[in-house]
């Protein structure tokens, strides 16, 4: 089948009916103490992925819940065939509780605990053993046709420059519209980088409650800087953004909001929460690239579009990230990391619509198996948006 002439994609159907574009076995450490053993298992067993983090213990309240939701969401992402949940044993984020939630989807889930297995070496052996079985089972599954109504595409910009708002972000806006038109879901995120553009998005909300939520999440984010007594510009825009010509957070936001295209805003969801609607959805995340990426992937995004003006290696352990350069010079300089170039818009060689169409075609290719640069380079970034102190 020639994918160019259809919107048909090829993916892996999961027991809960969802469709993945990858078929990973995830070694999921619920506590920082288990991350090194998890990494060792990925080195022993082909087809497994994991990630390093520093969370999972001495967390309370909403902060506990958000971290828990993120772990569970990573396991539930349809790009994951099965999960080996790795715990230490005494942590607040119990491996067993996380595994129990993921298992409700019908996916294969195993729990391995360092304390129960008598230390690191036996844990690695046990984890590798169950993972190896899972990988072989996963390898027997074949891709099957699915369409955009089952695809969630995350959108993100990082390392922005003044071209972001002129080339790559408007092109991603075109893609967002194409995805929504094809029946799919596009996630807009990075609340921080929508400060100053919220009125434009609130106008596109499907109802008053969604519009009200837009102003609420913006106020909460802005108040975090105000309560700290600092100019938010000390952290955002970043030094690289400023070097690239962006002067204020508002300017960056107005460029960033272009990624949302033109369709109505259907709902506003919490960090790492799965969308309940199709169409354009706003997830409340910070502007931090990796925390935002992690939130969208934990919310079920199978593919992510990431625009950058300065260049970035960013990738996810479980979701392909298609990285789009805003200018040609950076695309050539960072060809290891960047998948597509939207700098042709700046040079007048392509229109925003043409680049958008090109990105849309790439989503079809990648969703059906083509690897992105960050996957090839094993850029397995993961970071949770913590909203409370560690105790």
């Amino acid at each position, binding site marked *: 089948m020639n994918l160019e002439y259809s919107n048909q994609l090829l993916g892996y159907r999961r027991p809960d009916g969802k469709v993945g574009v990858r078929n990973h076995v995830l070694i999921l450490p619920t506590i920082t103490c288990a991350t090194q053993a998890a990494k060792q298992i990925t080195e022993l067993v082909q087809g497994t992925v994991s990630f390093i983090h520093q969370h999972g213990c001495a967390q309370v309240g909403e902060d506990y819940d958000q971290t828990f939701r993120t772990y569970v969401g990573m396991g539930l992402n349809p790009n994951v065939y099965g999960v080996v949940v790795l715990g230490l044993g005494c942590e607040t984020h119990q491996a067993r509780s996380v595994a129990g939630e993921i298992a409700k989807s019908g996916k294969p889930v195993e729990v391995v605990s360092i304390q129960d297995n008598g230390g690191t070496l036996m844990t690695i052996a046990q984890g590798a053993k169950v993972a190896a079985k899972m990988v072989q089972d996963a390898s027997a599954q074949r891709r099957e046709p699915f369409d955009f109504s089952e695809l969630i595409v995350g959108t993100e910009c990082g390392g922005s420059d003044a071209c972001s708002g002129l080339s790559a972000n408007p092109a991603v806006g075109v893609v967002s519209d194409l995805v929504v038109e094809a029946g799919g879901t596009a996630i807009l995120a990075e609340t921080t980088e929508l400060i100053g553009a919220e009125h434009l998005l609130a106008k596109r909300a499907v109802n008053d409650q969604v519009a009200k939520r837009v102003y609420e999440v913006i106020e909460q984010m802005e108040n975090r800087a105000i309560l700290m007594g600092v*100019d938010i510009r000390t952290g955002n825009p970043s030094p690289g953004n400023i070097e690239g010509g962006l*002067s204020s*957070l508002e300017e960056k936001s107005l460029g960033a909001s272009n990624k949302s295209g033109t369709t109505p805003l259907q709902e506003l969801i919490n960090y790492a929460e799965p969308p309940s609607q199709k169409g354009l959805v706003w997830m409340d995340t910070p502007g931090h690239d990796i925390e935002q990426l992690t939130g969208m992937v934990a919310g079920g995004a199978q593919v992510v579009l990431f625009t950058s003006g300065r260049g970035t290696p960013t990738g996810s352990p479980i979701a392909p990230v298609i990285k789009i350069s805003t200018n040609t010079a950076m695309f050539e300089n960072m060809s290891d990391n960047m998948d597509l170039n939207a700098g042709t818009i700046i040079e007048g060689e392509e229109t925003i619509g043409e680049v958008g169409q090109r990105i849309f075609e790439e989503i079809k290719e990648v969703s059906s198996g083509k690897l992105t640069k960050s996957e090839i380079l094993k850029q397995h970034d993961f970071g949770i948006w913590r909203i409370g102190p560690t105790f």
Partner: protein
Amino acid sequence: MGVQYKTVMMKPSDNVAIALMDLPKGAVVPVVCEGHQQEVQLVQDIRFGHKFAVKPIEAGAEILKYGEIIGRASSEISMGEHVHVHNLEGIRGRGDKVESRVQ
């Protein structure tokens, strides 16, 4: 033959435009946007991606790009001058501007 200087202005109501290539001091550059057309003589070098004023901007006045407010002039800005963090301040997320902070 002169060099073809490339710039972009997002909305006719904007008071800044963007250099689409490195532009030298003294250059007279065209600024065109939806029927609006003018020339601006640059008073300093403007690097690729950076902004310059397309009209004089008073200190404290709002700076517009995309037809929206991107900040306020922290000093008087003349036409053709570089507009960036040295003379444009953000208005949002300014915890440093709050007189009595919530404890």
